[in-house]
């Protein structure tokens, strides 16, 4: 599907749900909105509430503390919705996977259904673009 066809469907509004990441991924999302990458030129907008988001961009390994909040955020996002798990922690738990880790409830897919995973620690802005495009193709 060509880019123009994807974005003729809808301008995806993305809610960035931070679920205990180290800020590395969050910095790269911020860099996406900066002048060099400028995610808004594709109509992708970072929004401040999950209530009007189409795509949830989840970073981090989901600590126990954040788990109920992430579930609520997912419930608040209107259908149809897609979840993009970002970063090594979001995809698999990354370096934090351990039998004795008492504070991690994740990875994200154990808590909410994930459509697209963006691996990398952290992924580059280009990869974030690609992940959001993949999520759009799946609508």
């Amino acid at each position, binding site marked *: 599907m060509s880019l123009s066809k994807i974005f003729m469907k809808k301008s995806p509004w993305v809610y*960035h749900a*931070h*679920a*205990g*990441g*180290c*800020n*590395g*991924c*969050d*910095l*790269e*999302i*911020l*860099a996406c*909105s*900066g*002048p*060099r990458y400028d995610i808004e030129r594709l109509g992708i907008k*970072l929004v*401040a*509430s*999950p*209530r009007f988001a189409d795509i949830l961009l989840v970073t*981090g*390994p989901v*600590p*126990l*503390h*954040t*788990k*109920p*909040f992430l*579930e*609520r*955020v997912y*419930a*608040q996002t209107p259908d149809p919705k897609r979840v993009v798990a970002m970063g090594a*922690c979001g995809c698999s738990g*990354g*370096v*934090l996977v*351990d*039998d*004795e*880790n*008492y*504070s*991690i*409830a994740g990875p994200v897919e*154990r808590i909410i259904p994930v459509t697209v995973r963006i691996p990398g*620690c*952290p992924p*580059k802005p280009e990869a974030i673009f690609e992940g959001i495009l993949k999520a759009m193709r799946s609508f």
Partner: protein
Amino acid sequence: MSKQSDLFKVQDVSRENLIPEVTDLMNSGARLMYASGVDRGVFGFQLDYHFCFDDEAKSRYLLLRALVKRNEPTIPSLTPITTQADWAEREIIEFLGVKVEDHPDPRHLWLPLNWDDTHAKPDLEQNPESKRINTDSPKKPPSDHIFIQPLSVVPYGPYHPALIESNFLKMSVEDETVIDADLKLGFNHRSIIKLMERRDYYKDIYLSERICGFCNVHHTLTFVMAVENILGIEIPQKANYIRTLLGELERMKSHLLAIGLLGELTGFKTMLMHSLRLREEILDSLEVISGQRISHGAMTLGGVKIDITPVHADFIRSRLKSLKASVSEFFEQYLANDILIDRLKNVGHLSPADARTYGAVGPLVRGSGHPFDVRKQFPYAAYEDVSWEVITENGADSLARLKVRMREFMVSLDICEQCCDILRSVPSSSPIVSTMSELPCGEGVAKTEPPRGELLYHVASNGTNTPEFVRLRVPTFPNAPILLRLIKGGNIADVPVVIGSIDPCFSCTDRATVVQANKEIIIQKSSKTNESGERIKRGGK
């Protein structure tokens, strides 16, 4: 690095003598950096109180060590003597179960809000099949321990991607004045120091890198420095320059972002866009060196893994040259904006005396006129071999802290240029990693100055391939309680300015922000609608 280990001194103290000893130390100008606790099994709980003396030219470091019995884990609280002990003691209470007597505020700070309901069940420990902790949804909706007052309570959260660390700041507000504020941490609690005790030293470097995306170079650097202090080895001079260069590049990108975000928080998004544009130049340099924009994996025990060739040095140099011109133009525009300056002036005033009393670190204390900088007081890497000055400002408000960051940026740029020049001239065959010997039993402490202030690592080795314990104190840890003090009594519209000027990093601390607060409002609303929805259904039946 042996320079730092020379300053390190441990002194045992009995439980009874703790209060008089600490009172004496505080009167002689010491600062309580951190108090950490370690479970030493049959020996009991070991409580370490880290002090440093900022007034002395090469600041001395002292560790007071108290051992409390396992069957009677009590220790008198130091919070009545100095507020610097407040959060550290809350951490000890929470994670070790040591009873700190007379602590004024012994509530949970990190553990999940509903921890006692869901996870403190006795049958969970008895069931051998449950390897992991119960991760089921809580039966009761999460509640917090944060105060409730008969005033309007504002859970606070301007959404911003960079402030996205999930922390929960709750304020009680009367008219437009903040009466009280409290912070709930733990939304990023990933138990990293526990994992570090289970993995070997080389894997721990990667774990420490994932504590914080902003200052990962400094986290890895401080960890390897602490281990090198146990070993007592010398680092090749070239590696020291590479460490300095990476650290300063990190400081530049972090300060630039903090400056931009402060503009965004005061309503000038243009400033954020400019800072993001300029930041890419630094990220390019880092990507050329290490292949990664954010996390570099550059540090290793005994040196660095990434060599900087003359070609790299030239590339960085050219980027720095263009940055120098464009950044001074950006700063000029920033400070020429009267409205923005008025928003920052006299907001979040932290008097020089208060900065000492509360134990502020980093640009926060330097903005109040104290020339405290670990790079000068407790030198590491190659900071003694390059020429630079500690930046201070006397304004003691948000504007002064902004100016400290701006001037420090230029100083960092200068240090980077010096490092590049030296690295160009060093022969390419010179080593970047020194040979390692077997790691002896012992303890090591290392301090560095990340962009936000002083970072402390305390690592103990027991001769095996994993550390006995790792304890770390991040710069936001002492600064966040000060943030609450600065918010109190101020105007609610000034809260983002104060937060932005302190630039807290809660993924380190495991941080205090802001987006979670947004979610909280929504959650409260949605739980109300759920209840009413159920009621309607029942009525229908």
